[in-house]
């Protein structure tokens, strides 16, 4: 520790070089933090683990096919099931089809939806009661309600796409939850419209199981029940349901991890190059230090610490820039694109922070290793003889 001042001064010996090297570490770390946060956001469970008691039943051929409503009663009778709500993805167009106007639109059974199934959401009991009583009413995630500035009593029109009907809905109030990108309206209201699945089909079933340990049993029981029917099912936990969209995007994880790894390797080389350059220029100085009594191990640790210190500085700056500048910027832009739904959990989490610091220290150690060993091995005589 008493040498900290020496190391610190050596880091700042050549300002341009130090700024450039730290700069490249900052840029790479910013990029890695952003990419990792994006990946984590996509994989994150919006309910924060509270949804582990919930199951989603979809058609075994995927979401493209709908399920018969007659299955509801049979699912409800399975022991351990608390409540079942049919849900249909309306997928309509609000205002126009620009991505910033995208909203998740789901029909649900208001009588049980917030009370028994989606119970990690917070909703004002008055709002909930009024929603139940209003046939054409809808509730919206607080985030999107704020975004569009909806006030109680406002009407919105959703133009149907694959369900060929338009919905005229009236805003009741907001709910708060991990995922606030959806609006919910009555199943019954959707079924007043004349569409091919009227009173007959539903997109999926959303259900709650009383005990966590019953989840696998209930899921298996549902799938077995309809295995040989016209509409075989695939029952997924909330997390699996999310992951299936991730899988559809292809190997995003491999792509992002691959990019991160390669650019980390590249920045390690940049830092190693800098440290080596600066060590090479100081051969004489190092020889003098050795004659003064500093040991080889001292020299080794000096050079190594310089490298680590530089990387760590870059790492800290990088994380700060990612967290406070770039991610808010990307969020602002991303809201307007078709991937806005993926950005719900786009933020720097503690594990990402820890990862970023570990990585920057790692880069410092790896980069400083070879130059540090080389410098510590120089013979005093050679070092003093050399003219740089």
């Amino acid at each position: 520790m008493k040498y900290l001042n020496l190391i610190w001064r050596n880091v700042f010996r050549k300002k341009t070089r130090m700024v450039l090297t730290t700069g490249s570490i900052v840029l790479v770390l910013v990029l890695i933090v952003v990419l990792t946060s994006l990946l984590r956001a996509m994989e994150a469970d919006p309910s924060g683990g509270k949804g582990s008691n919930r199951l989603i039943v979809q058609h075994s051929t995927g979401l493209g096919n709908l399920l018969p409503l007659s299955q509801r009663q049979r699912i409800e009778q399975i022991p351990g099931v608390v409540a079942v709500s049919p849900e249909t993805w309306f997928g309509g167009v609000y205002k126009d089809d620009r991505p910033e106007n995208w909203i998740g639109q789901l029909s649900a059974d208001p009588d049980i939806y917030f009370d028994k199934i989606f119970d990690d959401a917070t909703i004002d009991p008055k709002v909930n009661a009024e929603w139940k009583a209003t046939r054409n009413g809808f509730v919206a995630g607080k985030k999107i309600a704020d975004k569009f500035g909806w006030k109680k009593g406002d009407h919105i029109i959703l133009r149907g796409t694959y369900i060929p009907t338009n919905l005229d809905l009236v805003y009741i109030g907001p709910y708060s939850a991990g995922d606030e990108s959806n609006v919910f309206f009555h199943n019954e209201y959707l079924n007043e419209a004349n569409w091919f699945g009227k009173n007959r089909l539903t997109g999926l079933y959303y259900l709650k199981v009383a005990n966590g340990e019953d989840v696998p049993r209930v899921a298996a029981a549902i799938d077995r029940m309809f295995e040989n029917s016209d509409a075989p099912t695939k029952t997924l936990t909330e997390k699996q349901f999310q992951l299936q969209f991730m899988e559809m995007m292809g190997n995003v994880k491999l792509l992002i991890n691959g990019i991160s790894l390669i650019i980390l390797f590249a920045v390690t080389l940049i830092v190693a190059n800098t440290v080596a350059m600066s060590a090479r220029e100081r051969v004489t100085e190092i020889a003098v230090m050795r004659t003064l009594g500093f040991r080889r191990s001292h020299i080794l640790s000096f050079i190594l610490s310089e490298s680590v210190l530089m990387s760590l500085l870059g790492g800290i700056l990088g994380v700060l820039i990612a967290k406070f500048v770039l991610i808010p910027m990307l969020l602002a832009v991303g809201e307007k694109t078709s991937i806005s739904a993926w950005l719900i959990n786009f933020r720097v989490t503690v594990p990402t922070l820890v990862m970023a610091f570990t990585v920057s220290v790692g880069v410092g150690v790896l980069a400083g290793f070879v130059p540090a060993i080389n410098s510590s091995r120089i013979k005093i005589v050679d070092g003093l003889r050399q003219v740089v």
Partner: protein
Amino acid sequence: MAIPLKYNFRNLFVRRVSTGMTVFVIGLVVAVFLCVLALVQGVTRTLSVTASTRNVLTLRVGSQAEMQSVITRDQADQIKSLPGIERSPDGRPYVSPEIITLISLPREDGKTSSNVQVRGMDPIGVEMRPSVKIVDGRMFQTGSNEAIVSRNLSKRYANMKLGQPLKSGSFRWIIVGLFDASGSAYESEIWTDAKDLQQQFKRQVFSSVFVRTPDAAAANRYIETVKGDQRLKLEGKTERKYYDEQMITGDPIKALAFIVGLFTAIGASFGAMNTMYAQVSARTREIGTLRAIGFSRRSILLSFVLESLMLCLAGGLLGVVFTQLVFSTFLTKPTGTMNFRTFSEVLFNFRMTPPLIVGGLVFSLAMGLLGGFFPAARAARLKIINALREI
């Protein structure tokens, strides 16, 4: 007078390790940039290739994708009698009412799965898409629940080899043929007979009606006719326009490519700048000598910028080689990503194209320019006396 390039070239070899590392870094950065760009290009190419301006998709008004459109049997029959539709040599109209559905299928690795688009069509629909050729097996027959799939698809998904039964939920098909769709979006689809699919799907409607017209002008007239027909409430879109609109699927990857490219490029040019600064300070006396024998400040500036460009161009070439190696060893199989419009997987190939190679080299030269300019300016500003005094 300009300083000979040979001077710079030889100087790069003097500090082999430092030069080598910088070239390697630039190479890695260019390779990352090229891979992401190739991904963008792969997706957009798939959606743009061989889409014709003569073929028209007829959809329900406001539908962004065939999946969202519903066309009744009556509407499909009315379309058949519209003017301006081309006829085949044996006199049948080139009209194919088609039904689209999505099924989730396991990929070849057995662990992950994705949505695949199934297209039920009139057998004439195959003839209407000349880019599609059956390369193995035969065409499907009506009434026998047979299907043909693209060769790429059969490589990417499990149970899709020729002769294998394909099951998903209550759907059953036998794969009787493999086709090649010249890299177009049809490479991502399973094709079967529309009537068979309607029966299995238990819905007597279509998603779209695919129509061929004699030329682009006739296509526009057909689109106008459909638009003007109040009974139909449908709209026409040329095949080209329909797939162009789906290109927003590439947008998130484009944004990713842009951010990754920008950040790594600046980072790597900082590395190059460091190397060049070190070169300048190590060669201060040389620079003084060059000035003393008559080379102007401008030639010194030019010389160092050129040296930096050479350094980075070498990196760029290395990057192109890296990318080619990655493509030819790891990414030989077709890759897929989600098409946000159709909600199904779109298959594409990573490919090295001449514009991509040029792009990579320009990218590396940009890094060279950025990394070389400031060190070169420092070198050009040196005073002869001070430079010569330096040890």
